[in-house]
């Protein structure tokens, strides 16, 4: 094989792309990955990981501010050094970015540096990036291949997504931020308007609030984090408001006026009233759109829908030999969804037996605000809408020994079962560390356990996880500590 000919070329090295590349190499396929900006994609560089680093600083801050509650005395006032908080977050990202480079080398995957374009079936032309890179950048990895024409039997598009811009409120990088600017502030604003209360918006709102910023969240839907169970969302909202966050729902940012060093947002509420909010900056967090442009998809006749490539259950597009996975292949736009979708796709390409399409109903979602929110499966409303006869279990953090000991006694674990079959349809949580708890229910759902199996499972004491069992017991009127 010529050294520009591969079994598989993957475009984009985000969690979707790089994980797929590793699995591809494990399956013995000659694999290359094209990247124009940063190994690890949005997730490692400007998404999941650096936000979690920032939120850890926020958490330390929150703890310090409550030190007294734990009998600890802190002399003087706790304050954040923006530069150092950001530097730590960038350092965490750099470490993982380097880690992906190492993994590529270890698995003998060629990294081709530059912007990929599909010119004809089976061919990828890599040129200079036409996209201005987000600064600061991590160094270009060593030993990469350069621009040129490459061929492959199978090409997987994993180009990810970018912030969606609302007309008239386009981010300008100065006064109107996207997650890129919000991730690396060079000063701490006094006040912020966050437009959109999905996971990204609410995480930044929570981070900045912990840093002492005056934060107003504006959300068009009825609830914050609209995809979450309404009851959970309501508890989260109350907790966030208690922390001093202002939240406007069923409200829309209609217009933004820019001042010299501030913005004024005109917010329209449901009743038709308009209020103005002046703040230092506005964060636009109204979702993301797939990176489907400038790839040559149109010329190949690849079908797209709402800014995403259309695929079947195994990542296949309508064009033979061309596949798409991850954010560019549609929601939910989550790193673990991208990874799994990629693994399914490449295992199918390799012809492994028993490859099953991903079940989108079993993808967990986590939001790392304070308090955290995590869920999997159907919400109570969705289950009812689907006509399911259900049983709902609830258990509050206030009745759990570990939560009380932690001083984190606000939260709820909610479970939803099919009344007839005992199938676990959904689990929803709000409270401290629930992002680490949810996986227990994800495993349960994947193994298709019923309430009976869960009731037979022993949970260690004292842990937050005991609430998971109590919630299950409660669904059947058997909760012990309630």
């Amino acid at each position, binding site marked *: 094989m010529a050294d520009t000919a591969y079994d598989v070329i993957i475009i984009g090295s985000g969690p979707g792309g790089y994980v797929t590349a590793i699995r591809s190499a494990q399956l013995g396929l000659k694999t290359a990955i094209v990247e124009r900006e940063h190994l690890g994609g949005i997730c490692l560089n400007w998404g999941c990981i650096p936000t979690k680093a920032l939120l850890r600083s926020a958490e330390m801050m929150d703890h310090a501010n409550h030190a007294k509650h734990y009998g600890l005395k802190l002399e003087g006032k706790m304050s954040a050094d923006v530069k150092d908080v950001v530097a730590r977050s960038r350092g965490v990202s750099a470490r993982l970015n380097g880690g992906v480079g190492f993994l590529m080398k270890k698995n003998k995957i060629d990294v081709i540096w530059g912007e990929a374009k599909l010119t004809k079936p089976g061919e990828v032309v890599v040129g200079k990036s036409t996209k201005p890179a987000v600064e600061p950048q991590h160094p270009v990895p060593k030993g990469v291949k350069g621009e040129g024409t490459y061929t492959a039997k199978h090409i997987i598009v994993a180009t990810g997504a970018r912030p969606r811009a609302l007309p008239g409120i386009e981010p300008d990088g100065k006064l109107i931020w996207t997650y890129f600017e919000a991730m690396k502030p060079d000063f701490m604003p006094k006040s912020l308007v966050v437009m959109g209360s999905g996971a990204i918006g609410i995480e930044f709102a929570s981070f900045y609030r912990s840093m002492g910023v005056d934060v107003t969240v504006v959300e068009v839907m009825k609830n914050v984090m609209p995809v979450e169970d309404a009851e959970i969302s309501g508890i989260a909202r109350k907790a966030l408001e208690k922390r001093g966050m202002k939240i406007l729902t069923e409200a829309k940012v209609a217009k933004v006026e820019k001042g010299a060093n501030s913005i004024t947002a005109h917010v329209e509420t449901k009743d038709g009233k308009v209020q103005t909010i002046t703040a230092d900056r506005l964060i636009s967090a109204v979702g993301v759109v797939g990176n489907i442009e400038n790839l040559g998809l149109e010329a190949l006749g690849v079908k797209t829908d709402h800014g995403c490539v259309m695929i079947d259950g195994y990542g296949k597009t309508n064009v033979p030999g061309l596949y798409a996975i991850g954010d560019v292949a549609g929601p939910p736009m989550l790193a673990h969804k991208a990874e799994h979708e990629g693994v399914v796709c490449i295992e199918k390409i390799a012809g492994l037996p*028993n490859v*099953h399409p991903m079940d989108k109903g079993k993808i967990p979602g986590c939001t790392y605000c304070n308090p955290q929110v995590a869920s999997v499966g159907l919400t109570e409303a969705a289950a009812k809408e689907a006509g399911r006869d259900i049983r709902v279990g609830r258990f509050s953090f206030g009745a759990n020994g570990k939560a009380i000991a932690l001083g984190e006694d606000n939260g709820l674990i909610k479970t939803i079962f099919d009344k*007839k*079959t*005992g*199938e676990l349809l959904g689990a929803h949580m709000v409270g401290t560390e629930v992002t680490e708890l949810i996986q227990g229910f994800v495993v349960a759902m994947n193994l*298709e*356990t*019923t309430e*009976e199996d869960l009731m037979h499972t022993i949970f260690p004491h004292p842990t937050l996880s005991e609430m998971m069992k109590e919630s299950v017991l409660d669904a059947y009127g058997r909760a012990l500590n309630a």
Partner: protein
Amino acid sequence: MARRLAKLNGLDLAQISGTGPHGRIVKKDIEAALEKGVGKAATSASASAPASAAPAAAAAPSGMSSDQVLKLFDDDSYELVPHDGMRKTIAKRLTESKQTIPHFYVSVDCELDALLALRSQLNGAAPTDKDGKPAYKLSVNDMTIKALALALRDVPDANVSWTDDNMVKHKHADVGVAVSIPGGLITPIVRQAEMKPLSVISNEMKDLGKRAKERKLKPEEYQGGTTAVSNMGMMDVKDFSAVVNPPHATILAVGAGEQRPVVKDGALAIATVMTVTLSTDHRCVDGALGAELLAAFKGYIQNPMSMLV
């Protein structure tokens, strides 16, 4: 979940194939089965294993996983042939048999000289049609079938099937005959063999054997039966023991007839001898009963004229 759904819908898990990890039956499989109407648990009092035992069989340990087995060999040192339906049925039924049936074995030697003599006499006397084709050509196997059927008639306590609740005492000896066919084996049944003349058994067997090889048997031609014969004599096997095929309680493994030294009236002599081994389901055919059945069988083989009356 799958188990719960199967129970709610009265499905027999043993009849459903799983598509989950390592072939586990998952919710989707149950839904598919419901749609196609597969796996409805048997409701009639058929002689097959009671439905309640089926989930237990499905849950029984299935040995090493495919991955565990394959790991023991180099990647390019084998090729993989997917199981067909017959292979799966054989595996399932025989595993079930060995796991649920306590097997017990009794062997005996039978002298064949008289039987062979009678056979050639009968074949020689077979009427011929206008093409000169004889109306029957008896084989040793045909005579074995008949002898076993008559022995079961004489020892009716051994002509039984086990169910958890009752002993099923059969009124006729329906003898299954293991026929080896490409890719496996199948056991067509000669019904009421104790009542049929040898010529009928012989011709029936010829037809069943032919259609078995063409895989053209109807289910009712190979399902059920009260006992079975497995004959490896033509392959020069001296003796072996067979696995009981439920709902049978017995199976007779037949070795080759060969000339062996025997002691007759205190002196060495040469006789044609075959060794047969009866496997029994000890739950319903105890050792002594098995021995009694074998003795009756041996009687018919060594005094073959008694099969004719």
